[in-house]
């Protein structure tokens, strides 16, 4: 167990190192998220009340779209040179490989959110968030909800032709609950929560994360090392 834990941290460090060395691509990802937010605003029009009302929705759609690029790349670095096999021979336990990569991807997604949230608040005119700590909690939980099944499906599709299409097709229906909860919770933090609904949505996010972080970790060995 301690070995799996130590290996998880090693893989996490490795992924963050690779990401740091190729940071030009990470920066491009931030730009992508910002451009998507801008496009949503164009699509809805300059009606600022409407924009502010849906700021939470735009944010999470931008993050979800950015995540498919990020997840695809995260597994491509492992597959393009058969580094995945080298890790398995090391030998890295498959569960540690999953948790390390999923944590790294969740972290990167939070990083994208660090840029996307201010951009979102600025261009939709939603203004200053009164409770940034609560928003940060929602972002972390939501990013984790995308990262666990996302890393799993990215690994499953990594060597299939047409993976660029297959990954979002598999991922999007699956994360509907996490997306709904994240959007609702974010909107409630931004626009106020008179009916005390926030705890319920956060609880739903926590449940979703708990289910998929455990289920995907359990099944990952079959995916990479059948």
């Amino acid at each position: 167990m301690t070995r799996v834990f130590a290996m998880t941290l090693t893989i996490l460090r490795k992924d963050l190192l690779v990401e740091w060395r190729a940071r030009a691509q990470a920066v491009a990802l931030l730009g992508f998220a910002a451009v998507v937010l801008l496009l949503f605003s164009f699509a809805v029009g300059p009606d600022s009340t409407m924009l502010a009302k849906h700021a939470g929705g735009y944010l999470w759609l931008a993050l979800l779209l950015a995540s498919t690029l990020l997840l695809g790349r995260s597994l491509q670095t492992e597959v393009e040179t058969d580094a995945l096999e080298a890790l398995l021979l090391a030998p890295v336990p498959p569960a540690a490989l999953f948790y390390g990569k999923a944590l790294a991807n969740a972290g990167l997604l939070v990083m994208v959110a660090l840029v996307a949230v201010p951009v979102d608040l600025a261009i939709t005119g939603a203004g200053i968030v009164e409770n940034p700590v609560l928003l940060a909690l929602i972002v972390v939980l939501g990013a984790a909800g995308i990262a666990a099944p996302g890393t799993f499906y990215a690994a499953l599709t990594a060597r299939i032709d047409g993976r660029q299409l297959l990954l979002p097709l598999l991922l999007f229906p699956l994360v509907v609950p996490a997306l709904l909860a994240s959007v609702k919770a974010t909107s409630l933090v931004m626009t106020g929560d008179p009916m005390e609904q926030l705890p319920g949505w956060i609880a739903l996010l926590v449940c979703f994360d708990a289910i998929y972080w455990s289920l995907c970790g359990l099944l990952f060995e079959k995916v990479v090392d059948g």
Partner: protein
Amino acid sequence: MKSPLAIVGLIFVVLGMLATAAGHWIGLFVAPPEAMMGDVGRILYVHVPTAWAALIFFMVAFVAAIGSLWSGWRGFDAATTGAVEVGTVLTFLLLIQGSIWARPTWNTWWTWDPRLTTSAVLAAAFGVVLLMRRLIDQPAKRQMATAVATIIAFVDVPVVYFSVKWWASLHQQASTRASMDSVMGLPLGVAALGMLVMGTGLMLLRTKVELVRLAHEADAPELPPTAAPLRLDDPAGGDPTLDEAT
């Protein structure tokens, strides 16, 4: 058509169709119109059985997928595929029926009713599993991918349902469906049984087709005949170029 699986499947399909037809006949001509919705309410006799059957086949797919992943037996793989196919088709039918119902009842083709929305998400989630199957050539990998994606999609069913229910209830009151009348029990029960038996028959047929396909794919040629060992010291079997080579 000598396979018992195919024969049983066909019998089930025929029996199921008869039972479904009988249920609908009672529902359409014998039972009185539904109290609140009138004749439109009669879609209930096809809609509710479809929903039940779809959910049951996804459950069957889930169980088969666990077996498939755990044992690696390709019979489970074929059964998973058959069940997911039937479940997905039923879910698409459910969406169409839902729209047909929604139009006269709520005056719209689409509504964010939790059940309808959940069906749409499920149709997408399981439909993609079938799509993914087509894209993988390697049998073992295809079996694994089908099984894990089916398991993950099925686990999502209750989570999607509750999240959508919660989400939609903030906009409008969740729709109240027809209240059950004792007169409706008989046609509903017969139609549901018919749908289930017909679905099972279709699933068996699809499983059989998939089994044949998988068996054809796995139909391995015998190991090649043993090649003669090479002898370097045998002048008769050797080659004149050998001397140049050394």
